[in-house]
């Protein structure tokens, strides 16, 4: 027999302490938050610093989280977006998009040649991403990083769902053409 649970039930089952509950939440959202941030900043150390800040803020507010006001996903990505906004504001830097190669975390199945090829592809994709407009970058980050549906993205960015669909499709085709062009060139 299959059993489906809500996140609240998981948190409840994992343990009664806030620490154990937070650990379950952390495992669920860390990769998505990290990827979302990594699409928006140019290097791994900054991505890691900002991800740490997001989870520290979440930890401080974790006990006061009210699921009647927003879902876990909306809540954590609101914190992540605000952290990024503060970061860009404080650095006064123009937004750059990056997927920095993390060579100390390669897939265990990849050979050194495959690892090198993957690193090259990530680097190429990184430079293609920097050619997108700001709304396109944001949508790509929320889609591929945060794994949001078009409807959720529309809500976050105050756009219509169909508008998100159009921009996303256009951005991916632009990336594809740019990627191909650079590979061939």
């Amino acid at each position, binding site marked *: *027999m*299959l*059993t*489906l*649970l*809500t*996140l*609240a*039930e*998981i948190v409840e089952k994992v343990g009664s*302490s*806030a*620490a154990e509950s*937070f*650990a379950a939440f*952390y495992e669920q959202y*860390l*990769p998505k938050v*990290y*990827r979302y941030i*990594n699409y928006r900043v140019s290097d*791994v150390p900054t991505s*890691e610093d900002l*991800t*740490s800040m997001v*989870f520290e803020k979440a*930890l401080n507010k974790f006990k006061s989280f009210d*699921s*009647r006001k*927003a*879902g876990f*996903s*909306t809540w954590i990505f609101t914190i992540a977006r605000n952290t990024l906004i503060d970061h860009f504001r404080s650095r006064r830097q123009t937004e750059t998009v990056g*997927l*920095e*190669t*993390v060579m*100390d*975390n390669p897939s265990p199945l990849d050979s050194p040649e495959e690892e090198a090829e*993957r690193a090259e*592809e*990530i680097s190429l994709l990184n430079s293609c991403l920097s050619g997108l407009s700001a709304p396109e970058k944001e949508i790509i980050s929320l*889609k591929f990083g945060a*794994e949001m*549906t*078009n*409807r959720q993205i*529309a*809500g976050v960015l*105050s756009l219509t769902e*169909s508008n998100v*669909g*159009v921009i*996303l*499709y256009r951005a*991916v*085709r632009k*990336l*594809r053409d740019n*990627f191909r062009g650079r590979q061939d060139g």
Partner: protein
Amino acid sequence: MARAYEEERVFAEQLDKALAGQAMQISPGAADDLRTALEFSQRMVNLRPDPRLQFRTVLKVNLIQQLKEKEERQPSGRSWFWSVMPREPIWQATLVLAIMLVVGGVIWGTLFHPFTTNVVKVPTAPTVTSTAPAPTAAATTASTAAPANPYLAAQGSTDKPVYQSGEPVKIEISWQNLTSQDLTINEFPPIVSLMETSDAQPVYTFAAGKSSRILTPGQKAVFSYTWDQRDAQGNLVAPGRYYLELEELYYNGQAVKMDFSQPVNFDISIK
């Protein structure tokens, strides 16, 4: 125009599949532009970075440690005053100012307006009525869209497309077991949120049910809700467009996205 819209729809649908770890299904007759865009998306999904294992582990240990220290500190040292006092200085200052205003107001009222009575309005709690879950044998509506997940399909409807402000909104949601085994939903019905389209924020959430429900293969369970157009604080919501959203469920610790087969939207108009 219609072809472009269809391509965007197929693209979004297949990309969501790839992000959920499922295989994309590209029709052999798909336009070359769409097919190559989907193939490239799959490549982007595969190239997504994962956080370093060391970073992941160290951060987790640090955070859990911080939380445990907080939990240990709280019962012994902190007075009730500090437990309600915000941490940020700006909020501390705001709270102190608010207290001073209240105290000042009370003194002013007592000294200069001793006979004025204050009427405190208590917001009424949202009225929610529900009927017991009633399984039905046959599907009520046909759906052309792919199911959101391989376990449970959800379909929803409202009794009207447009409501006057304050008019009760009657909602019916059905969940159908898509698997070939008995499926237990521990808290039935799952959490349902009423979302405001303009900002995609929930205005009211129906909490999960307290009872467990077992659905046999193919069985459908229907649940009815009545929403009085009030938010969690008991205030009437603003006119506008609203939609329903389902909270994700979990199977073996993995999130299972819950989407309606067809979006459920309705409008609230001004009287």
